[in-house]
């Protein structure tokens, strides 16, 4: 019975989507309209593409959209990740029913040494990605994820020698605060939150894009520490 209802629901959704697209893109009247709409849409995105470089000085237009034009979304999104990290700790930290699991076998010397060797390199790569976010593909989220994968390596390879979770707490609080404060400075200086108030620099060099690289570094640190604490909590290593 439930299966039947589910399948019919699925069918309705599929039908709606397919009708929508057959009408809009392949119908006689639809094809015409789609062409016109594509034109309009290009104009809207085109505005960011054509003016973004001079307005924000960042070569990567996606970075300029993420941090400046739609920076408020990004603030919200960093908050979502923060909620996930805090909420995960809430859900998992309440008293445990089961006694602590049997300790896993420690990793072999090769793995251990490899991890200790690789961890700083991964951190370096992550920081490179988020520092150059305004010039090349990548940015705060991608760099943060790379940093977090470094922590993942530590939890897998060097059991019991993980970082203390207080470090994560301090980093995520401070970097989140840095983001909000930078946004509020824009409000104080130019009357608008997230305003790019610093000089734009010469385009396509490291010191360009005004406030964008600084915010991206804060995002990178915050994403890295939050994903790190999520990993620490889920792997059962955190106290």
């Amino acid at each position, binding site marked *: 019975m439930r299966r039947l209802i589910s399948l019919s629901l699925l069918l309705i959704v599929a039908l709606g989507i397919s009708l929508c697209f057959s009408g809009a893109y392949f119908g006689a009247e639809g094809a015409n309209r789609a062409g016109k709409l594509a034109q309009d849409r290009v104009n809207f995105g085109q505005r960011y593409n054509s003016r973004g470089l001079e307005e924000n000085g960042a070569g990567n237009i996606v970075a300029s959209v993420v941090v400046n034009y739609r920076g408020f979304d990004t603030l919200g999104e960093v908050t979502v990740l923060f909620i996930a990290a805090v909420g995960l700790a809430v859900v998992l930290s309440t008293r445990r029913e089961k006694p602590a699991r049997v300790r896993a076998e420690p990793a072999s010397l090769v793995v251990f040494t490899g991890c200790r060797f690789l961890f700083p390199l991964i951190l370096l790569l992550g920081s490179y990605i988020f520092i150059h976010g305004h010039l090349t593909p990548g940015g705060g989220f991608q760099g943060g994820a790379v940093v977090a994968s470094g922590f993942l390596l530590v939890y897998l390879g060097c059991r019991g020698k993980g970082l203390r979770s207080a470090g994560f707490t301090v980093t995520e609080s401070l970097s989140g605060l840095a983001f909000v404060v930078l946004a509020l400075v824009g409000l104080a200086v130019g009357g608008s939150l997230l305003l790019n108030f610093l000089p734009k620099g010469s385009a396509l060099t490291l010191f360009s894009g005004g406030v964008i690289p600084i915010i991206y570094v804060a995002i990178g640190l915050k994403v890295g520490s939050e994903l790190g604490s999520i990993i620490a909590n*889920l792997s059962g290593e955190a106290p």
Partner: protein
Amino acid sequence: MIIFQTFVVLVMIVAAVAAARFGDLLNAVIACALVSLMASIIFYFLQAPDVAMAEASIGAGLTTAIFIFAINRTVRYERNEKTD
């Protein structure tokens, strides 16, 4: 190029079906990672290198890791409810 893109999309769909069908959750998660990887290749072809990077590192990498942690702390098979 279009043939290659079609191939990638087909692999992605097949992997998604596999993720839906596998009884062994570990296999299903690996199939899920394959879906994310293919999606990230498609993102690259759609001229979205930023998204491709994010999908590859977050979708294919970290998501798989946290799934495996969760499976490690619960059960591995969809039907068989005994631990381990």
